[in-house]
């Protein structure tokens, strides 16, 4: 077979854009799971809500992309705050499975509500004027907007990583993940920390949603579709390492793009196939610690 090198590179760059979303989402999912012990099934729905919030801000108040990028995470974060305090908090003492069931129900209810309000079809969201156009990379024309998503997404992920690994706040977070009772004994308010972590995690998903709005169509199913892939990404990377989640997300995006170019039929399944292989060869995940 002869492969078109330009096509492969082009698809891989586009795959990297998806990889950025995988990284942002799996990052939030890992941090929330690490501290709260809850697999946040609703993570994809918060991603979707981020896109819808950007759309609504534009439609109702004429607020454009850039202010939305700052406002939406605040809105989604506030929503996460409410969800943690009113719903998730009561489940910490129970089996972890109830957290999964609850967030799944929440995801259904929110997605249903969005479908009732906006209908099932996708809504358009325009690329900001300052990022129109494309750059010629030699092998492809890369739209500026997608280039921005890749760069900004990676910077966002690395910033989150630095905050967790290199700041006093992050140190407390890591300590609380390790041993909440001990951290509580040192006088840190762990319940507030859990709430804020959940809020921050879903706010991150919200930013992802805003960034995705001009690329993916803004539709109610966008969250659920991506969250299952992100689960596979998390299993592949293992939840022990923040940096591992970022790297795994990006790499799998690239791989997905590559597959699209050489064997398009398998592009939607390749990540799941990788998951199976990793589970057989290294059950704890590429960067995971032993349970």
């Amino acid at each position, binding site marked *: 077979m002869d492969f078109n090198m330009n096509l492969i590179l082009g698809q891989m760059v586009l795959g990297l854009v998806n990889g950025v979303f995988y990284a942002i989402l799996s990052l939030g999912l890992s941090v929330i*799971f690490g501290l709260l012990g809850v*697999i946040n099934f609703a993570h994809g729905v918060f991603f979707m809500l981020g896109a819808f919030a950007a759309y609504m801000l534009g439609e109702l108040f004429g607020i454009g992309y850039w202010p939305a990028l700052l406002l939406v995470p605040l809105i989604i974060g506030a929503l996460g705050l409410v969800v943690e305090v009113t*719903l998730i908090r*009561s*489940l910490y003492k*129970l*089996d*972890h*499975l*109830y957290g*999964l*069931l*609850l967030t*799944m*129900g*929440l*995801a*259904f*209810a*929110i*997605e*249903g*509500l969005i*479908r*009732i309000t906006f209908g*099932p079809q996708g809504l358009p969201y325009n690329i900001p004027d300052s990022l129109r156009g494309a750059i010629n990379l030699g092998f492809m024309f890369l739209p500026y907007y997608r280039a921005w998503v890749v760069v900004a997404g990676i910077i966002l992920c690395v910033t989150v990583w630095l905050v967790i690994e290199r700041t006093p706040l992050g140190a407390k977070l890591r300590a609380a993940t390790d041993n909440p009772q001990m951290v509580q004994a040192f006088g840190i308010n762990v319940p507030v920390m859990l709430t804020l972590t959940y809020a921050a995690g879903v706010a991150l998903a919200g930013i992802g949603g805003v960034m995705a709005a001009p690329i993916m169509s803004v539709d109610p199913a966008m969250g*659920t579709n991506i969250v*299952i*892939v992100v*689960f*596979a990404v*998390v*299993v592949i990377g293992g939840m022990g390492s923040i940096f591992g989640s970022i790297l795994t997300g990006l790499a799998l995006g690239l791989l997905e793009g590559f597959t699209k170019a050489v064997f398009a*039929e398998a592009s*939607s*399944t390749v990540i*799941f*196939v990788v*998951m*199976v292989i990793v*589970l*057989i060869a290294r*059950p704890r995940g590429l960067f995971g610690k032993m*349970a």
Partner: protein
Amino acid sequence: MTMADTKTMSNTTTVATTGFQPLGFSPARFWLMVATTLAVIVAPFVLYPIFLMKIYCFIIFAIAYNLLLGYTGLMSFGHAAFWGMGAYLTAYSAANWGFGFEMALLMGTVTGAVLGLIFGWVAIRRTGLYFAMITLALAQMVYFICLQAPFTGGEDGVQGVPRGTFLGILDLRNDWTLYWLVGAILLAIIILSNRVVHSPFGQVLRAIRNNPNRAKSLGYNVDRYKLYAFVMSAALSGFAGGLKAIIFQIATLTDVSTIASTEAVLITLVGGIGTIFGPVVGSMIVLSLEHYLAPYGPWVMFTQGIVFVFFVLVFRKGLLGEIQDYFKTKL
């Protein structure tokens, strides 16, 4: 998922009762069995038989799911793959290879079992929430394969599935004949599930659910038993999916999508995780809700979500779980 916190799940301590146990049921369960039998007999004169048969298929599906979640403590989110592929293979073999009713259903059951063996072999490497995520991802992979594979007929599905005859005698094209057969199958499977749960094999599964390490230290090969339970559950799910395909004479992508998996979870949760008759009650409630809300489109999804949240927060043990606690019995 290990149910370490046995207080929140139904902590079944089986006492070896030597008293009267008709069909292997405890007295309370026996009366529920009688009630279920009467309901199966009376219901078709009140409600549409096709709708009832749909409920029965989901009861069998949820019984299969509950064997795994309620009695082994494994939380799967991938049961749509077994149910959906069971439906596809039953439908395809009946429509294209001329398989009769029994052979087509066997085809669906075996499909579920084989797929369950593969899923189980991969997923049992991890426990807890990882197990749930892995099964979900594997089922999504199966969905994408079905979306593209030619045998599924894509968006159209496998249509025009002949119902055939039962043992070459009963013509199943007649809705009423089919109804009595499906009703009898349902009752038989409820009796069977109670038998399995209370067999020595079922005891080992519950020992694993309550404390995997203790079961291991007693010399049981925990992973092997989990795999047996998984394959059994998958085979029964494939059977249920196949039965549904024959009743409705169609198998579609919906059967193999995440929706079907969440349906099994929701029914089990509403009825009561780890109760014999929970799937019966749960299925009636969940499917009726969907049936009567169906004209309102996305309200179904919204309501399902609310029911999920409500039961997790307020009725965690499910309806029968709460009732059995109140009356200090086992249902």
